């Protein structure tokens, strides 16, 4: 150590203790204040950090809600449709409509209406109101979209996806079976996936349910948002025949009608739906009877003699032909009750008329005969 440095050190070391103590106390005090300030600054920093974190969290949540509403580029499943291979743009739902006569479905009557009218007294058979306009049965249908094909027919299921980001679709699962993109039918796009399917052989509805669609986002495989459409569709194959009804026998009296009605339903399409026969007098429904599939014997009595009635068998079924569950009139006939008396061999002259009166029914007694003047509207 240099001589001068030693001198300086010795001098400094001789500074009065009180002065050192005073400076030391001040130093401690100031250091504590600085530490407290630093702590406070740290606290403030944490508070600011916490506020910033909360803000970021709120913004993130807000964006998480808002982005889907604004429409992100995540692909969204839109639903499935079916089309026939031959008709690329047409939907197959129309299948079956053109082949069916909706007016009188299989109304194969053994007894002709004309034959029933034999022995009538000349009343007009035409009724004011159609019985089908007066009856309405309850039908419960579902909202499912249904498509119709023929047995073993090859058709195409179209899977529609909104894919604004043009992500590559990697696969989807239909009825539990996974289909990779190389299995998609040619013509598939980023937004419409095509899959060739062969319809079952048996009639009825086949359900096709899509469970998951995967897409490729960079190096990741992600799930398509499946919330945008119905995951299942029904593809129907029509039953070869539909329910029918026939009148196997009938007997008519002046006030009653007896009918033997056979209802045929080989594929049990009617199920729990209503199956009834209604009787109308042309103005209103006068009676109805429930029927069952098979043979039925029905009697309508308390009727008016010499009056024309209409009866009809109604039910509801879905033949899986495109009409869905619908009201069906299996049989409609008019029938006229027998009269009590008839007039024949009328011989009019200038001042007299003669005729024969005969009894046609089992009931009725002649108590008087009056002559009616049509011009004066009076009876003699």
């Amino acid at each position, binding site marked *: 150590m240099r*001589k*001068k*440095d*030693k*001198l*300086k*050190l*010795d*001098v*400094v070391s*001789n*500074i*009065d203790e009180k*002065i*050192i103590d*005073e*400076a030391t106390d*001040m*130093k401690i005090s*100031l*250091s504590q204040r*600085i530490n407290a300030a630093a702590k406070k600054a740290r606290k403030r920093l944490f508070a600011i950090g916490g506020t910033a974190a909360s803000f970021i969290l709120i913004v993130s949540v807000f964006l998480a809600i808002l982005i889907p509403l604004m429409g992100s580029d995540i692909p969204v499943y839109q639903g499935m449709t079916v089309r026939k291979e031959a008709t690329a743009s047409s939907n197959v739902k129309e299948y079956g409509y053109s082949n069916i006569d909706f007016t009188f479905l299989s109304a194969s009557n053994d007894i002709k209406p004309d034959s029933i009218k034999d022995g009538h007294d000349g009343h007009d058979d035409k009724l004011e109101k159609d019985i089908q306009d007066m009856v309405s049965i309850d039908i419960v249908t579902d909202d499912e979209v249904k498509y119709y094909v023929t047995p073993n027919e090859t058709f195409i299921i179209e899977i529609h996806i909104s894919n604004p980001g043009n992500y590559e679709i990697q696969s989807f699962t239909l009825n539990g079976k996974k289909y990779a993109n190389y299995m998609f039918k040619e013509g598939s796009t980023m937004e419409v996936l095509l899959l060739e399917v062969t319809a079952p052989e048996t009639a009825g509805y086949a359900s096709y349910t899509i469970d998951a669609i995967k897409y490729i986002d960079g190096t990741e495989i992600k799930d398509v948002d499946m919330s945008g459409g119905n995951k299942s569709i029904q593809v129907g194959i029509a039953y070869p025949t539909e329910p029918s009804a026939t009148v196997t026998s009938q007997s008519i009296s002046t006030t009653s009608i007896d009918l033997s009605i056979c209802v045929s339903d080989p594929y049990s399409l009617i199920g729990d739906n209503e199956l009834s026969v209604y009787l109308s007098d042309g103005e209103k429904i006068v009676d109805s009877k429930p029927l069952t599939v098979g043979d039925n014997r029905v009697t309508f009595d308390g009727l008016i003699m010499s009056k024309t009635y209409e009866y009809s068998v109604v039910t509801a079924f879905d033949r899986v032909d495109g009409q869905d569950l619908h009201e069906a009139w299996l049989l409609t006939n008019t029938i006229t009750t027998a009269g009590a008396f008839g007039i024949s061999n009328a011989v009019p002259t200038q001042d007299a008329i003669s005729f024969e009166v005969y009894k046609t029914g089992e009931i009725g007694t002649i108590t008087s005969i009056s002559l009616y003047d049509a011009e004066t509207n009076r009876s003699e």
Partner: protein
Amino acid sequence: MDKYRKIHAQKRVPSELTVSLDELEECVASVAIEDENEAVTRISKVLNTFLLGLSRRDRFIFVCRYYYADPVKSIAKMLDISDKTVYRELSKLRADLREALLKEGIVI
């Protein structure tokens, strides 16, 4: 080899004590007293008197710098002032001390 040593030689960084003692050089550059002990005694007496005549704040700055050998930056932080201010005040304190020593005839 010499060149290598020159390049890789660790630089000697002067300690804060060395620096602070150097700063006091101007005050005791030319001590007029031959006897070292006497010089220390007399300078110490003038220094203590000088310090007692200062404000508490100036005394603090002087003690921190030349007794504790605190860096200027540290003193500035404690007093919440700039480094420049500390340097300026230390410079004035040293000048005043030299003046006091001159007055007592300890330095020429």
